[in-house]
Each structure stands twice: as C-alpha cells, then as structure tokens.
C-alpha cells in the first residue's frame, strides 16, 4: 500500500496522482506505440478498430456516465462523422487534417440541436427520442443522394497528411498511429473535463438537477454542452470508422451500432474512461475469440456452436447480463476491486464496495 502525503493542491489537480501512475501510463503508451513493429497487418487493423470503438465509447460515456443522459442514437453521430469527413474531403477538397475536426464539429452541432429542445426529457423518453432521430438520420442520408451517394454509400479515399499516406490498405500502421495519437488527445480532453468545473457541472446534473441549479449550474445549457462534447467525440470516431471501413452506406450506421456502443460502455464500466477502453477491447476481441473457438475447439464436433448465425450478439448479450447481475460497475469495477484486494491484502473486507443506502429521494423540494 502506498501512502501519499500531500503538501500542495497540485497533485489533486494533476493528470497523474503520483510518479508511479505516470510511469505506468508512460509504459502503456510506449507499448501501444511499438505494437505495429511486432504484429501483422490483421492485428494492427483490429487494434485500430479497438481504438476507434474506444473513442466512440468515450463519447457516449461523457453523456451517460458523466452527465447522466441516455442515448440510443449515437450511430447518428458516427454517421455524421463518417459522411462529414468524406464529403468535406471529396466534395470540398479539404485536407483530412481539417476535415476531421470539422466532421467532429458537424456532429457536435447535431448533438446540440437535438439536446436543446429535449432537455426536459429523461431516461426512457430521451432514449426513444434519440433512437428515432438516428433512424431519421439514416433516412436523410438515403434522401440526400447527390451528397451521400444514397443507398450505394460512399468510398473513402486514403488519408494523406503532408504527403504521408495513412490509408487502411496502403499503410495500416500509419493509420493506427494516427488513431492512437487522436485517442490520446481525446483521453486528455476527457481527463480535463473530469478535473474542471465542466465535469463537476456534468456530475451535478447527473446526480440532482434540483440542487445543480441551486448551485448555479444552468441545467439546460450543461445538458446541451454534454451532448455537444459527446457527439464531437463520437463524430471523430465515425470519421475514422469511415476511413477504416473505406466503403460504407446508411446501413453501416444502424440501430445495432448504437446499441453496441451503449452495451460496450455498460460492460466496460459506466462513468470511467477505463470503461470505454475495456468495453472496446471486449467488442473487438469477441469476433476473434469466436472464430478461434469455431476453428479450433468446435472443429469436427457434430454441432459447431460457434457457427450459429447471430452467435456474436448472443455472447455479447450474455456477457451484458452477467455484468449487470454480478458487477454493475462493469469490468473496470471488477478491476478496481481486484486491485484494492491486493493493495490492502490481507485487510480487504468483502463489503467494502457495497452500495450505501441513500436517504429520502422523494419529496425533493418539500
């Protein structure tokens, strides 16, 4: 167990609690940067996809985990990101380095436009509304054929920045590094949100809108900002997703994708950056695992379970059920418990993480 004596407020504000933490994350970064030298193109591709999902997950996490709003329509922001970046590149001739943030901003704008009139909606109503909007976005994509290619969809040509090629099929390692770099920047932004007034404003509207406004937090504005930031992140993920897929159409960004992102953050652990990454790892590892099981374990047995259609979503849902039943704080929650167990060994008590009861939540204002 490490004991920390604080002599100034800076350590509470810094990104890393102490040297040890900084070292751990520095090592992680180095390993991530070096990966392409040890892996084949297939795995570099899978890793890139994991990071893209993690960005999308962070986007939804800001909304759900930080500000307490739900969305079943985040595929819409993936779509605006993907279509945005490719249209800006191909139709306006914008370089990728400008088209990417612009696509993020377009998605953010859509997010704010959705948020402003709907701030009075909570829970299931907001979920249904966002779901409806994402279906609407699919339709708009089909209708806006001259811009979006209609049902045929679009092709994303290689990303080129200052003459260097970052294309999926021409240089996957470069694409990986580009996505990794963006991911790191966005993690930094997320961390900054958590340690500044904006993050506290998010948490306050999540936990109690009544007292948030008593504290001077403008609930409507804060919800809109949360939606905007969330859809910016997701839009960036969408832009990379488009370039990773290279070809996509309206069906790429369907309801299943929205639900997948939501399940991802629940499985990973709602409310933490780690959760987005754990969820993303699960979601990309799963198909790999299944094909491994199919080819090596069930090979030759009379019924090959893993070859059943829809087995991926099935297993995914099974994991979700297990998580919700046994570890509501997701993989990250389980990780925290394990870590505390070893740090405090042998002092750990079983009910250390038990949920505490909350007092009178009804009759709020009386």
């Amino acid at each position: 167990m490490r004991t920390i004596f604080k002599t100034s407020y800076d350590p509470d504000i810094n990104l890393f609690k102490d040297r040890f933490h900084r070292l751990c994350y520095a090592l992680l970064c180095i390993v991530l940067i070096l990966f392409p030298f040890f892996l084949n193109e297939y795995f570099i591709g899978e890793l890139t996809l994991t990071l893209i999902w993690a960005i999308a997950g962070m986007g939804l996490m800001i909304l759900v985990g930080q500000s307490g709003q739900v969305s079943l329509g985040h595929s819409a922001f993936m779509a605006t990101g993907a279509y945005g970046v490719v249209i800006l590149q191909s139709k306006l001739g914008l370089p990728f380095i400008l088209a990417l943030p612009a696509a993020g901003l377009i998605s953010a704008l859509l997010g704010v436009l959705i948020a402003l009139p709907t701030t009075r909606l909570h829970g299931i109503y907001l979920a249904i509304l966002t779901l409806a909007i994402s279906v609407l976005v699919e339709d708009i994509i089909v209708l806006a054929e001259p811009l979006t290619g209609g049902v045929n969809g679009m092709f994303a040509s290689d990303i080129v920045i200052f003459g260097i090629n970052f294309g999926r099929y021409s240089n996957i390692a470069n694409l990986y590094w580009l996505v990794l770099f963006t991911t790191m920047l966005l993690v930094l932004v997320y961390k900054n949100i958590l340690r500044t007034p904006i993050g506290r404003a998010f948490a306050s509207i999540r936990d109690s809108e009544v007292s948030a406004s008593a504290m001077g937090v403008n609930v409507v504005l804060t919800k809109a900002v949360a939606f905007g930031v969330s859809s910016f992140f997701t839009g960036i993920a969408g832009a990379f997703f488009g370039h990773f897929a290279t070809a996509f159409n309206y069906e790429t960004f369907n309801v299943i994708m929205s639900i997948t992102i939501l399940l991802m953050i629940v499985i990973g652990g709602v409310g933490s950056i780690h959760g987005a990454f754990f969820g993303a790892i699960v979601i990309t590892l799963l198909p790999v695992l299944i094909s491994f099981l199919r080819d090596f374990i069930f090979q030759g047995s009379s019924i090959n379970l893993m070859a059943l259609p829809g087995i991926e979503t099935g297993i995914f849902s099974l994991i979700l059920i297990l998580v919700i039943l046994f570890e509501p704080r997701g993989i990250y929650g389980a990780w925290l418990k394990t870590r505390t167990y070893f740090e405090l060994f042998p002092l750990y008590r079983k009910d250390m993480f038990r949920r505490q009861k909350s007092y009178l939540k009804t009759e709020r204002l009386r």
Partner: protein
Amino acid sequence: MILSLENISLNFGGIKAVDQVSLDVKEGEIFALIGPNGAGKSTMFNIISRYYTQSNGSIVYRDEYIDKLQPHQLSKIGVARTFQNIELFPNSTVLQNLLVGQNSSKSSNFLQEMLFLPSVRKAEIDRRVIVEKVIDFLNLQPFRDKQISALSYGTRKIVELGRALSMQPNLLLLDEPASGLSAEETTDLAFWIEDIKKIMGITVLMVEHDLNLVGKVADRVGALVEGNLVAVGSLKEIQANRKVVEAYIGT
C-alpha cells in the same frame, strides 16, 4: 433590507400553501421561520429560490426584483440554500460537492477547461483554497475524499451546509438544518450559524423546528401558520402569541 417579500401567495390546487405573506429580512441578521408541518415554510423557500413561481406578489433582493430569475441565476447574486431532504451529489466526494459551489463564480468557459489552459489550473487552486476554508470551518477534514453515499445522515446535512457556504453567498437559506442531527451536532450547528453571521457576515434565513436552537441563534422569529405569517418578533414574543400557541396545540 437584503430580502423583502411583498404580499406573496401560492396555491396548490385548493390548498393555500402561502397566503399573502410579506416579510423583510435585514442585512446581517438571522431570521428564523417556525411553524407546524405543512405551514408552507419550504414552499416559501422554493418561491424565494425560484423553483416555484408565486401567483401573487413579488420578491425584492437588495433593491431589485428577482421574480424573473431562474433558480440557477440566484447564486450569481449571492443567494445559496440547503434542502430539507438533503440534495447532495451522492456519487461524488465531499470535496467535489463543495467545489461545485464554486462553479457559478468561475471565469473560464468549458472550452478553456477542456484544454486545461494555465489560467484554469490557477483558478482551480483558488477554488480549492476557498473550499478548504469551509472544510476547516465545519471540521469536515476526515470526510474530504469520502463519497457522500458513505456518510451518516448528520454528516450529510453538514456537508450540504458546507456546499452552500462554498458559494460564498450573502444570503443563506437553511431549510431545517438541525432535523436529524444528534444533540452534539446541533450544538455545533448553533456555533457555526452564529459564526456564519458574525465572522462571514452572511445573512441567514432559516426554517427550524428546534426552538432551543432558534432561541440561541435567531435575532428575529416569524411564525407561519397555514400559509399565513401570524407573528414576527423575538422568540419570547412569538411563544406568547395566542395564534401561534393555538396552531401548535391544534396540530
């Protein structure tokens, strides 16, 4: 006069929750509202802090009408409040809860915060200094990094008081601050409320059932009965008032 209520009324369906109440709170005093349950005390607080809009009358705060303001705008003009049934942010630590109190006086916008510009760090430290003073004042040091959901009821009440204080208000509205507190905690509370007035120079308007506490700290007392303000004066005068006595015996 820091706060004047002019002829405030509010009905809920058939119930006259607040009935033509006029009330002045003087700069720098502790004013206590007493009255039986359902007398309309919390409703008056909710009208002052703009959660409810009165059907009649107006509210003046330091010579300005504040009837048009929204709840979140009150912190800007220096009004803070607590709730009868604790309304903290249960998934955050005590420190984070208190820091929210500083949100309304921040000078940065969310873009600067997302980029964590150097000015943001400096402002963060300034906020922390203010909040630490409140933590010291209320002896909350042992709970600084504890989740609200891990605290006892009494401690939560005190954290809520602390959160209101970290807003550095001019007028503090306390809705039954001593309800649910132990005798010991109530004694502490009495000292704190006096210091809030004397040392911090904050005007306090409080609702309280504990007449012992009211007697210790309040400069003036108002009695609310069925939405009517039936008497204003010292606690002795109020306790001698026939209408007040009847109301309490009647319930």
